[in-house]
């Protein structure tokens, strides 16, 4: 906690690895939400 985070550098992109990981996890979650079937989806009104 007391040490500064490592940074990812690529062209104009300069972002800390913790922030990069959070954004990556969010993109993965969003992609999974698009394809994962919703449980009991057929029990609802049409």
């Amino acid at each position, binding site marked *: 906690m007391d040490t500064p985070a490592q940074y990812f550098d690529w062209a104009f992109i300069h972002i800390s690895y913790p922030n990069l990981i*959070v954004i990556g*996890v*969010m993109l993965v*979650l*969003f992609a999974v*939400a698009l394809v*994962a079937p*919703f449980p*009991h*989806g*057929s029990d*609802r*009104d*049409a």
Partner: protein
Amino acid sequence: MPEATEVKPATTGNRAKEAADSGWTYRTRQWVDRVLAMDHLLPHRQPYYVGSWVYVFGVITIAALVWVVVSGVVLSFMGPQWWHVSSLGRFFNSLHFWSVQLFFIFMVLHLWGQYFMAGWREGRAATWMIGVVIFGSSILTAFTGYLSQQNFDSQFIAINAKDAMNGAGIGAFFNVLNFGQMFGLHVMLRPIVVTFLVVVHIVMVRARGVVKPIDREGGSPS
């Protein structure tokens, strides 16, 4: 000559009823019944398209907000020394921090989903816009929270943000070096604003229902 129609004089009871029906309490109740009908606010069945992870993201955001508020109340009650020194205080500090992270992560996922679903369709523009305002308000709330940590991190953020605030012309009113002002805003004004807007957002979603899916031709379904 036509016969005159006999008009019955209004009784005292009728006049009292008419006066009561035109009162603001009656009109307000009629409006609430119309706009916030209970079968919309607490429906027991939902259309099939409510079964979407996008709404789960929204619900997780609300759950995270509850944890943010609960842990924040404990932190404000016990004070900075407690949350920096004692193990229980550090636990609640972490609980507050990580619930904020979850709040933002799932709020943005909900926002992405609503953007691609065009959630503002069919009279839901205000619901969408209030969601956008919640996002902006939450950033301001988190900012004042980072300034209220009472550690070197908050000092670093305050010193760097001071120039930005001065450059924006609001440094005299919004003084990020003033801990009392930042802490007061963070624990009092900002939580009230965010929580109030979230409640309004949920009530508006309940009143209108969630937006229908976009049909395969790309238009809005009737």
